[in-house]
């Protein structure tokens, strides 16, 4: 006879239930959305915060790493909005600003013809079934407790719709700002629907952490139409020690479409990025790349699920890590090729440079293949910098530290160079160089 063990709720889990109870009546959405929220919270509540015995969360045990639940950030004051207006400035064009997870049209720009923006709150209130299905993630990531938690508590976000055939030449910037002076949580969810044959690039970044800790539960969902050409970048660099940032990225790709994504993670605290990507149509190409630069006691987890349903699609998932100090890096990637997804060409690769003996890198690549005519592969490497390369550079007069930085920059920037936008490549290269010079100073 075996005793049934019911794990006791942690303080954070109890706190999250209290947060949900306190705010649910105020959260946007019609009756269908309210049901969706309740179902999602029940699912979360049943599972609890993910812990090491949940396979996909094995290396990021939130039961121990997230000790408390923070209240949802209050609406920003007019003064806070004005301060942010100054900080944001006018350099960045086509920007959509979310303040503590809530869309702030007064800080945002108008978008050109061919792309429309609405707040998630208004779309949830309207409750149109087709959009709600997309906002729910099209079944992608639905088993994950943190995706469920975000669905239950989603406050706001942006819903972008790109008209069929529209070509949006310049990137659309989604800018995450924080205004709350005290530690707070936010739950945002945004959706980008790209019509047939349209092209657009979305760039996510953050400003104004103000040095405060916080818990950010974000989700961005892409529905990429047939023959569309869609790009995405994420600059995840402004987090501070003690904060928790859990980002979900969901992508469904139609037929004959192109999708590319690049993310740079270089922040303090706990960062987990989970990516759920599905090739739903035939003959599409999707590339997801990411670089994580870690030092101190930073913890960055990228967990990826790629599902090939359509035939003859090419998937490329490439991730690099530089680990310094006592940091922890995690890469988990699973490619699943469904029965019938013939001629799938999938490649996944994770490479990590370990700069001290105190770092930890956990790599877990997996393939699940149910079709018989595919070419899939994965690889994972961990190692130090090549001493002979450093010697070659030193032999030309470049001091050791500079030689090291040159090689580290090359390693990290090589993936950023793949972004098909020179302006964005420059921005990411500068951020990588900045991290390296901070590292040398430290």
């Amino acid at each position, binding site marked *: 006879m075996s005793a049934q063990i019911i794990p006791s709720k942690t303080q954070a889990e109890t706190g999250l239930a209290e947060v949900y109870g306190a705010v649910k009546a105020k959260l946007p959405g019609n009756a269908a959305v309210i049901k969706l929220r309740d179902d999602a919270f029940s699912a979360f509540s049943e599972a609890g915060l993910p812990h090491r015995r949940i396979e996909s969360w094995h290396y990021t045990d939130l039961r121990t790493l997230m000790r408390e639940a923070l209240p949802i950030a209050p609406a920003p004051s007019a003064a806070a909005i004005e301060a942010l207006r100054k900080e944001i400035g006018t350099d960045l064009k086509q920007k959509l600003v979310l303040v503590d997870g809530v869309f702030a049209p007064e800080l945002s720009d108008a978008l050109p013809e061919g792309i429309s923006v609405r707040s998630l709150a208004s779309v949830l209130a309207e409750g149109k079934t087709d959009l709600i299905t997309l906002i729910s993630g099209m079944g992608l990531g639905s088993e994950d407790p943190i995706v469920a938690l975000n669905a239950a508590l989603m406050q706001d976000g942006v819903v972008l719709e790109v008209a069929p055939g529209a070509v949006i030449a310049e990137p659309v910037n989604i800018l995450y700002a924080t205004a709350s002076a005290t530690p707070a949580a936010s739950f945002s969810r945004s959706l980008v629907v790209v019509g047939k044959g349209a092209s657009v690039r979305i760039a996510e970044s953050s400003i104004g952490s103000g040095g405060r800790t916080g818990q950010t539960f974000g989700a961005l969902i892409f529905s990429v139409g047939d023959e569309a050409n869609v790009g995405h970048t994420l600059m995840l660099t402004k987090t501070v020690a003690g904060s928790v940032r859990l980002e979900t990225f969901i992508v469904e790709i139609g037929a004959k479409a192109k999708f590319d994504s690049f993310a740079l993670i270089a922040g303090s605290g706990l960062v987990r990025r989970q990516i759920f990507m599905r090739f739903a149509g035939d003959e599409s190409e999707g590339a997801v790349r990411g670089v994580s630069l870690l030092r101190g006691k930073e913890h960055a987890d990228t967990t990826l699920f790629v599902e090939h349903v359509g035939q003859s699609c090419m998937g490329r998932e490439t991730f690099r890590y530089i680990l310094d100090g006592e940091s922890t890096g995690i890469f988990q990637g699973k490619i699943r090729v469904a029965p019938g997804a013939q001629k799938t060409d999938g490649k996944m690769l994770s490479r990590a440079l370990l700069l001290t003996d105190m770092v930890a890198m956990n790599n877990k690549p997996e393939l699940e293949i149910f079709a018989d005519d595919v070419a899939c592969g994965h690889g994972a490497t961990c190692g130090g910098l090549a001493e002979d390369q450093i010697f070659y550079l030193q032999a*030309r007069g470049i*001091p050791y530290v500079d030689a090291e930085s040159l090689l580290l920059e*090359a390693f990290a920037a090589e993936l950023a160079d793949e972004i098909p936008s020179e302006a964005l490549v420059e921005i990411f290269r500068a951020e990588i160089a900045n991290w390296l010079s901070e590292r040398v100073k430290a």
Partner: protein
Amino acid sequence: MLEVKNLNVSVAGRKILNDFSLTVKDGEVAAIMGPNGTGKSTLSYVIAGKKDYEVHSGEVLLNGFNLLDVEPDVRASKGLFLAFQYPLEIPGVATMTFLKTAVNAQRKHRGEPELSTPDFMKKVKVASDKLGIKSDMMKRALNVGFSGGEKKRMDILQMALLEPAFGILDETDSGLDIDALRIVSEGVNSLRTEKRGFLVITHYQRLLDYIVPDTVHVMSGGKIVRTGGKELALELEKSGYAEYATSEAAAA
């Protein structure tokens, strides 16, 4: 002037250089020839400062400064240049970025101002044209996807830009076809001055038809066993290293 005095070096407990001494005067081109495994490449690496070698005793003086006391980058800034037998590929590092970083690092070390980008570009253009280096090569990552000949030309280009006091060429002829050998040799010859000396390490006499040495040393068993003029190289080409291999065996 390069003076190597009584150098004793081992790798993983195996003695490679055995009380090795050699002097190369200002403006002199000295060649070192010898069979495989006799310590020629070790000599070049030890002078340049590669780790993994245990130096037990001895000195390497470049114009009176003991190179063994300092890091490889300082040795380079003091005027030493090693052209590698196999120049390394450095993925992701643009050739131009690398060249500029190297030139300016050395200038900084010597207390000279950094070269401006236009001045630097001009210098590179002149030097690369001379070596027949195409501009698309300069845009690629350092040595990545270069042929053996292109890598060697890139190394000589670096030497031309860095203007060292002394150059060591480690088996520069390996992997080169006749045309590349001629271009590389012409590059080296154009850098010969009354002041700048060279140490040319090679197995074969062929390279010395192009880079004509003032002196030829035969190395075996971790030391110089014979010294002569350029005619010694021709003699070795005929007779081989058989008579020297015995002394190596004895040394080991």
